[in-house]
């Protein structure tokens, strides 16, 4: 394949399960942001899940089966980029661990690991991109999702990118770095504990007075949005990418909560 010298990197977009089913708009936002920054974006059709549910449930064999599938689907791209710190931390950190005793797959896992990026850190740290002329009218508070924060060091990048959005005011909440209680299957296996945790998160969100919550992982966002909706709190919830791409113009996750009856 010949590449023209002006063409940017060829990126395979990792379409996470939750994004694919619950929030296609996040996928289109990711594509827009990457293309605006000069990337060629493709979405391989032979991808499904990164394997994390198997890995975190202790089924390492299942996780390896899924990891091999992801490696095969994406290893020919310059980068694999996904709008989730959680899935991308699995690919970056866990794949090499899963294949540590496998001389055939370990080099392939390592190679993919090295070119795997969470969307916002890819935009900020690799492409040094700024969102072009996006606008969002509102006060936004940001939730640090745990895998992105502690696994991939994502903290400053989304905030810096959000700072470029016209009209957007960022208001930090207390304990933005504390887990919201999602935790994959945790939230349905231990619903009462999860409820207590998301209740604390919602209290901190509401205390900021922000009208919008953003974050980088749909699992957390669906948990918090679902709880906000349950308690009738009128806070809109978007993935950071939607706001940056200027595609946060429709209803947020869980629809627009009723302002008043």
């Amino acid at each position: 394949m010949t590449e023209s010298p002006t063409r940017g990197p060829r990126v395979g977009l990792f379409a996470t399960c939750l994004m694919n089913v619950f929030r296609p708009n996040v996928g289109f936002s990711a594509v827009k942001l990457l293309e605006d920054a000069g990337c060629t974006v493709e979405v391989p059709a032979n991808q499904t899940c990164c394997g994390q549910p198997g890995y975190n449930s202790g089924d390492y064999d299942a996780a390896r089966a899924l990891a091999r599938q992801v490696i095969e689907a994406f290893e020919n791209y310059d980068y694999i980029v996904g709008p989730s710190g959680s899935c991308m931390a699995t690919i970056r950190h866990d794949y090499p661990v899963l294949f540590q005793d496998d001389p055939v797959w370990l080099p392939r896992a390592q190679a993919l690991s090295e070119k795997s990026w969470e969307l916002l850190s890819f935009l900020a740290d690799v492409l040094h991109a700024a969102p072009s002329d996006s606008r969002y009218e509102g006060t936004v508070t940001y939730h640090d999702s745990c895998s992105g924060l502690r696994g991939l060091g994502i903290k400053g990048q989304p905030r810096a990118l959000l700072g470029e959005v016209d009209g957007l005011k960022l208001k930090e909440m207390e304990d933005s770095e504390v887990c919201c209680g999602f935790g994959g299957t945790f939230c349905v296996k231990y619903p009462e504990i999860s409820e207590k945790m998301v209740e604390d998160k919602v209290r901190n969100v509401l205390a900021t007075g922000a009208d919008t919550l953003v974050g980088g992982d749909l699992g957390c966002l669906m948990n918090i949005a679902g709880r906000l909706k349950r308690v009738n709190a009128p806070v809109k919830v978007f993935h950071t990418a939607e706001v940056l791409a200027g595609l946060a113009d429709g209803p947020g996750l869980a629809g627009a909560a009723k302002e008043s009856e």
Partner: protein
Amino acid sequence: MEIRSKEFKQRSVFAIHDANLQTALGRARYGFVGKRALQVAELPEFERLREEAKNTKNHILDNLDHYLERYEAAVTAAGGHVHWARDAEEARKIILDICKRVDAKTVTKGKSMVSEEIGLNEALIENGMEVVETDLGEYIIQLAHEPPSHIIAPAVHKTKDQVSDLFEAAHGGPRKTEVPDLVNEARLVLRDKYFKADVGITGGNFLVAETGSSIIVTNEGNGDLTQTLAKVHIVTSGIERVVPTLDDATLFLRLLARSATGQETETYTTISTGPRRAEDLDGPEEYHVVLVDNGRSKMLAGRFKEMLRCIRCGACMNHCPVYGAVGGHAYGWVYPGPMGSVLTPLIKGLDNAYDLPNACTLNGRCASVCPVKIPLPDLLRELRHMQHQQDITPVMQKRALKVWRYVATRPKLYHALEQVGARFLSAIAKNGSIRRLPLASGWTDVRDLPAPAGRTFLELWQGKRGQK
């Protein structure tokens, strides 16, 4: 102490609805976390110290036999005795034998998690001895007949009002309501016990191989009175607590206080070496150290070796949102929180504590504050892996994983099911979300399920860009 970790789920729900507990936990959580953060901010080399501590511990664990032998020789040279206990039963017997030999009536105790681990108090009381906990927190829960709920703040689950009630009932009133008055009342009651004590038992935060010394840290000075005023001093400690030199001990002391209570240093750091010497003004006539294995050497040989770096500071539980929600008693044994969720299954059996490694979101906050950098989430996941391999994982979950694997390794089938799911959920949604979903009540009991738009991203993408 009897293990009740199998009841984790029921106990955690109970804890969440216990208003007193929630008041106490809320206060404690912010206190410890905030104070630690201030101390860390004031010590630029804190991260370097963590790395150094991790490496030093790894070196010790790689040479544990050597340092333990040196330690034993040094204790013996100073006139003390070292006893080796393979398990809890042996440890209890060793201590009971010493107490019986000196005809002990009253035994005072400084804080020792190992003594909880081996069920020491029950054994001493069964043999007719009066056991008095002298750490204020331990004293409070002894009056309440409860186990500790935190490894450094055993009564952290109690409110001040509850303590007032306990003291009034035990000491006969009048009821005190101010903290200084409560502390003074305990001090007066305990003072008398120190002088009566035949045997004083303490833990050992660090055991120094070069000098044969045991080091304890307290904020109340109770450990000093326990170990110097009784005729016999017994130290109970895990075999992993040995450090090569006093210099090494200072490295860990700098990390311990900051990580645990958010202090630069604890009020008292006490180093004891052997029994009273002829020229000493006070001190015990006998000095014993009971070194407890109880599953530790097995950990040393396997993939959980890193857990033996633990210096029992409690930072992991202070920063754990699950511990913060349910408190320590829900975990059902001696060690709660992240470190307890690793240790309990390893010491008491994987099947006796199924929930502990699973009741965790793997958010990683514990590992990010651990002063010896134990990768707690990785160890918890490893325990899940062992549960899966040993068929301790519930059958339904294993079945679900099999189905998931079958479908997820077939992209076309997976995408078709995703499309069906997206359409179905979108069709049953009202006003952007779903309030009740019978097979997903774990989700919808607590929160709405945000509704999908109807078509999946991959469908829409293929429609737009026409890619294969």
